């Protein structure tokens, strides 16, 4: 076995030798390895300079010196394929004597060039691809014997992170030039916009001439920011250096300019979100090092892009008054001025003596001033945030001064809800702005604002400027603005939800009431049949009696049929009232307070929407009663709904239902539902509980009649009276013990 071991080792050594012999490093090992660095753009592009710097730094770590040759495709000046062929010939001729060990190509255009001409350009040399978009590389066939350090140029981090730190920002202008590269950038940026679903409003300027662009950025509103992508070519065909264009824009702009390359920083651009180019160069250089050391390019493969970071220019931050606290976490700030100590050492030492003399007074003043500035800054920031929320809220917000009911301010959403601009409305009262619907509780809403109550989800119909009627859900809150009492009114458009809410309300009601609605159709049908027969019989009789010799027997038969049908109709009506008496009454012990509260809760939603307050005055230690829960619920719901209906026409502030429960002598309890409406017409008092009596245009007139039936079945009764303070009281009186079934 020792023999086998030695054999294996020899074989192994032989294999290694063979491999070494085959590797490119074996060629010309005395001359330093040559690296061909192929750039897509021209020599002076700042990005190129930075990348090369990083690249050289990486290669400085190599054990032996390296020969780096840089060539420039200058693709913007020379985009034609014919010119590329010339370049290829040039490269082949130039490097024929000593071909490169590694070809490093930077940029998508260069990558395309190499890929297209792979067989003609040192086909056996490994290729390192850099500064190319990760998605782009993934979508193309993999170049054999190549490795890549991909990059990602995206505005997504800016779109995502900036609104969080600076909520006052609402608009973004994307800027790019007229070169194909610029256009591609815009496309990819728009894809980022779509992907991040940013709330910011994005507009685009692509391929516009510089004068127009300068004017555009000079006239931007305060809540916007410019994101400058690249500008390689003007629409007239002049080649430009993107960084210089960036600086010009930053100088002309009325708002901060952000970019996506770190090479843009330093002369006016406020900040960038990027992977510094020198870092890119470093990474590409490190791959090259690995290749020089003998790794196979295919083994290294395609490396993912690095994470970009935010880098800001301190001088610009100061220009725009951007607080360092408001920047995304992990932001780097460059171009800070040197500290006091570093810059003015001498003066500080000299002045210390003077300071020490006056230290007491001066220190105190300085500290106080700084504290105040800090507080002011915090206040400004929080006001800024409030302003941001106010402006950006999707709900309409308006501030009304209590003293005279005038509008102090309103936000864009309010403008949109009402169709009226801020300038039209500020300083005028709600009513004057024609906003509320007249004849409705419009003035009452105003009166309400003085009453001291808060609204929550109160529904108010409003008329917009172009005549549409909308339903708004309003909530109010009292605040003090500059020491003046005001109300903040928040409004949401719920016009579309009204139908949905109606349906839900139906379901929330007592199931028996819902059934009553269903029964209405069949009740009506059953009553209409006999009524129809009666009418037609009468008409027929009329015709028969017009004849010269009226057939009296036939007429008698008709009259008899009429009578029969009349009885039939009355029977149907009696059946409806008897619905309750069909032995369905259950008896269970009921706690009155719980019954009242739970029933009131069923109507809570309704009450809020109609601005009705519900109050409870329930005696302590009320006895339990034995009754049918569902039926009593039905009665209470009916009484409460009637009460709410009765108060439709009075001011919101006064709408109040009071539910009372008390014990009466002789083992009775009384539940009273009181409203603040206009009371019951004395002429109607006696007919109130009759079937089919109603003052409502769409009422069936069965509610109170049914309620009385239910009360009677329980051995009690219902009566109504007008309250001395206005409004009506409905008393439901029930015995504690149910009588034996009659």
């Amino acid at each position, binding site marked *: 076995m020792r023999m086998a071991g030695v054999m294996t080792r020899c074989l192994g050594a032989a294999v290694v030798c063979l491999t070494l012999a085959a590797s490119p490093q074996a060629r010309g090992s005395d001359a330093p390895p040559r690296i061909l660095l192929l750039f897509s753009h021209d020599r002076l592009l700042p990005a190129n300079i930075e990348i090369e710097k990083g690249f050289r730094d990486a290669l400085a770590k190599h054990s032996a010196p390296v020969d780096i040759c840089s060539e420039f495709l200058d693709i913007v000046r020379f985009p034609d394929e014919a010119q590329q062929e010339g370049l290829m010939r040039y490269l082949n001729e130039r490097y024929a004597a000593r071909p490169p060990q590694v070809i490093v190509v930077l940029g998508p255009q260069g990558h395309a060039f190499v890929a297209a001409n792979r067989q003609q350009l040192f086909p056996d040399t490994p290729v390192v691809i850099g500064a190319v978009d990760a998605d782009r590389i993934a979508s193309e066939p993999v170049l054999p014997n190549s490795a890549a350090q991909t990059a990602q140029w995206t505005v997504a981090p800016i779109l995502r992170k900036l609104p969080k730190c600076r909520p006052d920002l609402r608009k973004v202008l994307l800027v790019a030039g007229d070169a194909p590269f610029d256009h591609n950038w815009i496309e990819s940026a728009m894809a980022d916009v779509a992907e991040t679903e940013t709330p910011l409003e994005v507009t685009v300027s692509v391929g516009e001439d510089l004068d127009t662009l300068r004017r555009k950025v000079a006239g931007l509103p305060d809540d916007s920011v410019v994101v400058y992508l690249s500008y390689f070519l003007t629409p007239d065909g002049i080649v430009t250096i993107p960084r210089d264009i960036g600086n010009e824009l930053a100088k002309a702009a009325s708002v901060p300019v952000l970019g996506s390359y770190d090479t843009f920083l330093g002369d006016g651009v406020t900040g960038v979100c990027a992977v510094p180019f020198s870092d890119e160069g470093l990474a590409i250089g490190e791959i090259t090092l690995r290749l020089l050391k003998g790794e196979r390019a295919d083994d290294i493969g395609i490396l993912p892009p690095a994470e970009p970071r935010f880098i800001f220019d301190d001088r610009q931050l100061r220009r725009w008054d951007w607080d360092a606290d408001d920047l995304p976490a992990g932001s780097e700030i460059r171009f800070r001025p040197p500290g006091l100590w570093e810059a003015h050492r001498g003066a500080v030492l000299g002045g210390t003596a003077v300071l020490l003399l006056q230290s007491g007074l001066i220190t105190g003043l300085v500290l106080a001033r700084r504290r105040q500035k800090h507080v002011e800054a915090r206040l400004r920031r929080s006001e800024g945030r409030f302003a941001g929320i106010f402006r950006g809220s999707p709900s309409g917000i308006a501030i009304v001064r209590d003293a005279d009911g005038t509008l102090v301010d309103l936000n864009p959403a309010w403008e949109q809800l009402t169709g009226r601009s801020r300038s039209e409305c500020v300083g005028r009262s709600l009513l004057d702005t024609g906003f509320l619907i007249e004849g409705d509780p419009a003035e009452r809403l105003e009166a309400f604002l003085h009453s001291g109550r808060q609204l929550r989800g109160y529904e108010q119909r409003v008329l917009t400027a172009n005549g549409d009627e909308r339903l708004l859900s309003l909530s109010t809150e009292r605040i003090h603005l500059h020491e003046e009492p005001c109300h903040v009114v928040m409004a949401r458009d719920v016009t579309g939800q009204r139908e949905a809410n109606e349906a839900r309300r139906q379901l929330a009601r007592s199931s028996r009431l819902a059934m009553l609605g269903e029964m209405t159709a069949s009740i009506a049908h059953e009553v*209409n*049949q006999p*009524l*129809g027969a*009666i009418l*037609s019989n009468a*008409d*027929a009789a009329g015709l028969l009696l017009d004849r010269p010799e009226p057939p009296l027997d036939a007429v008698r038969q008709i009259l008899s*049929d009429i009578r029969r049908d009349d009885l039939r109709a009355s029977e149907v009506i009696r059946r409806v009232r008897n619905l309750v008496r069909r032995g369905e009454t259950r008896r269970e012990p009921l706690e009155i307070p719980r019954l009242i509260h739970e029933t009131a809760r069923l109507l809570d939603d309704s009450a809020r929407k109609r601005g009705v307050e519900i109050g409870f005055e329930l005696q302590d230690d009320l006895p339990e009663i034995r009754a049918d829960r569902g039926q009593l619920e039905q009665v209470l719901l009916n009484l409460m709904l009637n009460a709410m209906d009765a108060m439709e026409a009075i001011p919101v502030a006064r709408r109040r239902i009071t539910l009372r429960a008390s014990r009466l002598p002789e083992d009775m309890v009384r539940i009273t539902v009181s409203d603040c409406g206009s009371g019951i017409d004395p002429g109607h008092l006696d007919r109130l509980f009759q079937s089919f009596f109603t003052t409502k245009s769409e009422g069936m007139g069965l509610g109170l009649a049914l309620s009385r039936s239910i009360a009677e079945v329980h051995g009690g009764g219902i009566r109504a009276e007008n309250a001395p303070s206005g409004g009506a009281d409905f008393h439901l009186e029930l015995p504690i013990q149910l009588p034996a079934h009659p």
Partner: protein
Amino acid sequence: MNMPDTPVVHLVDDDDSLRTALGRLLEAAGMSMRSYASAADFLLQRVEPLRGCLVLDVRMPGGPGGLELQQALVRQGETLPLIFLTGHGDIPMSVQAMKAGAFDFLTKPVEGERFLRTVRAALDEEARRWTAGRRRRELAARRGSLTPAESEVFTRVVDGLPNKAIAAELGCSERTVKAHRSQVMAKMGAASLADLVQAAGELGPLAG
């Protein structure tokens, strides 16, 4: 029993007293009527041809309803005018009925005057349709009596071709064409070319 061709008001309603009352009203107004207690009864007992109009309740629980009967009649190609009686809450059904081709609908309880007026209008309409239909049936019968050769000539004559052209197309003599032509005129009962073209038009696009 009424003569088969006399227009009759067919009354279908499952409510006995209403059916009786309406029947009385129709007869008091001098109209012939037949009543049925259900849609099924009507379909089983009906006479051919169906002349007059049909008054039916849209809602007849416990069997086919008015709308179903309407659909059945439509499927059978029956063109009798339908008058629906509807009660409270049946508006959607009424709309459906009208869209499916009902003549009119009345809500219960229905006023006598109105009822009779609507029925008379329906009967008038039916009479109009019947007459128009009869003429078409007659023309179709006549057309069917033409020989193949005569049929070929008929088609070309109403297209406006002169005899010479027809002869050339059919490959026969002008004299033969003329002979066929006079046969066609006789069989179709046309006194002139204008009449013949009119008849062709009434027969519809299938005439040619």
